[in-house]
């Protein structure tokens, strides 16, 4: 079986991003699998060398126009790789920027494309993918029909760990036509969202916070924990109540804190996808039917506007008694 995986790093790619993809490709491909990797960016040579040393055939397409993520360049490079490699399975990371490539690959292969795959397993000579639909109301298991398939994988579908040593592979460089229709100009990162990745406790607010003026309640709650960060659902960011760097979910950050405290968030699967691997999940919502309660370890039916001050007050009372 031939498995092609690909990454579009904006600069250098760390082993943290690369290894899970390679591990997953090796695992799904099974014994004797031929696993290849496309790296499409700038300054990727070091990463390409590491991957080749792990036994992969690495296709490397570097260009100044890939200094920033370039979905069009990536899509064209991926199609070129596919024409040369004719893989049975193409594995891509999750992300909006990978979707044009996933679609172009599927059209090129006359194959299936399945996005936001949450888990994948082998069944005899084929694979079974699982993903959510309808805000998490259903899981769809799809048995691939034996045709080539292109999958974008959520982090939970990736296999962690060190890549086993293999015989040295090779790095194949190739150039792409210089002129593209899409010309990336600049990246705007609001500020580092690293605090979300490193916090033990994440206090996340949703529509239930009511308006921008109430965000201070969540900020006050964040302060009672020594290691904590403030997060938000998409609607809170869309409404301008918090900047997008706070967003958790499919189009935001994926987080795995010790405690995820969801305040006034209904629990769409887009949001759940970004935090479901948290160790302890607590949902506070005035609606006892909120879907989040199906995915939480602990639930409290209260209006967060009135409950958060009570929680902070009780914390300080208890601290004062000690």
């Amino acid at each position, binding site marked *: 079986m031939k498995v092609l995986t690909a990454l579009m790093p904006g600069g250098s790619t760390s082993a943290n991003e690369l290894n899970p993809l390679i591990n997953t490709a090796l695992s799904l491909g099974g014994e004797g699998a031929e696993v290849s990797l496309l790296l499409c960016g700038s300054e990727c040579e070091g990463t390409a060398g590491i991957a080749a040393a792990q036994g992969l055939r690495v296709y490397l397409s570097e260009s100044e126009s890939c200094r920033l993520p370039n979905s069009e360049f990536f899509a064209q490079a991926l199609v070129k790789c596919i024409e040369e490699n004719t893989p049975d399975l193409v594995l891509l990371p999750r992300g909006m920027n990978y979707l044009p490539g996933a679609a172009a690959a599927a059209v090129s292969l006359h194959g299936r494309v399945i996005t936001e795959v949450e888990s994948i397993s082998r069944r005899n000579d084929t694979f079974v993918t699982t993903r959510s639909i309808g805000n998490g109301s259903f899981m769809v298991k799809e048995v691939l029909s034996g045709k080539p398939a292109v999958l974008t994988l959520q982090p939970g579908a990736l296999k962690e760990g060190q890549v086993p040593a293999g015989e040295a592979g090779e790095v194949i460089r190739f150039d792409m036509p210089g002129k593209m229709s899409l010309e990336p100009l600049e*990246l705007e990162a609001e500020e580092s969202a690293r605090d979300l990745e490193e916090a033990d406790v994440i206090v996340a607010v949703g529509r239930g916070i009511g308006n921008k003026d109430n965000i201070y309640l969540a900020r006050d709650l964040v302060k009672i924990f020594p290691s904590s960060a403030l997060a938000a659902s998409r609607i809170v960011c869309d409404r301008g109540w918090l900047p997008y760097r706070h967003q958790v979910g499919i189009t935001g950050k994926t987080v795995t804190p010790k405690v995820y405290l969801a305040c006034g968030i209904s629990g769409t699967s887009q949001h759940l996808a970004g935090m479901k691997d948290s160790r302890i999940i607590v949902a506070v919502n005035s609606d006892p039917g909120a879907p989040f309660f199906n995915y939480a370890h602990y639930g409290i039916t209260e209006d967060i506007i009135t409950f958060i001050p009570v929680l902070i007050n009780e*914390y300080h009372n208890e601290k004062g008694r000690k």
Partner: protein
Amino acid sequence: MKILVCIKDVPDEPAAMESAGDGYPRAGESMVRRMDRLSEYALEMALAMKDNDPAVVVDTVGAGPPSVNRTLKRSLEMGSDRAFRIDVTEVDTWHPERVAAVLGDFTRGCGYDLIMTGAMSEDLMQGITGPLLAAELKLPTAPAVMETVYDKEKSNLLVTCELEGGVREKARMALPALLTVQSGPRNPRYPSLTSKLRARQQEVNLVPGLKKKGPVPPGEYIFEKPEPLGLVSMIEGTPEEKARDLIEIFREAGVL
């Protein structure tokens, strides 16, 4: 400039789908259907360009059974010039390859400078129909676009795309092109009375059904209700009692 906005029709509560006889989950017939949220944002983005330049033409298209007409009528009320419904079954709309194939058949040769879709639908959450349509038509795609500025003289667009984690990328793109549109700070408009009156005089144009079933037969599907994470422990009592219990949970977790 000629813009086509692809409109997705979804059940009002996508989470309330139940298994139907043919194995596909469906919303009950009594459930109201409406325009997908990100389709609304895509249409708003197109209409804003029309506001800036009245020469811009905005058409909408949706694929599905006659029930989709209501949502397409809404697009006319919001201000689109014409609306088209491609006649396919509801099951066909489950398969992005099929939807992209019929949209491609419809679009080819119509001379649209810009095609817009929502970045991801609320019901099927695949985010791939737009990119597949672009691949079918061999158009460049900008994914998850939140803002656009049209340079009429140079016939190009300045787009702001959302990458993951609050990072945005600004890019320039030549036309024709396809954008998948993400929500953003500009809310979709409510139809004005004038627009509603104008839309009453307009019909949704019917486009004959599927010429081809799409490039790939679907695999075997199994739909299941998801297992909850675990039985949630609901914390009961007065707000103060609940708060104290929660603080105890935080302490046991070692985070306080």
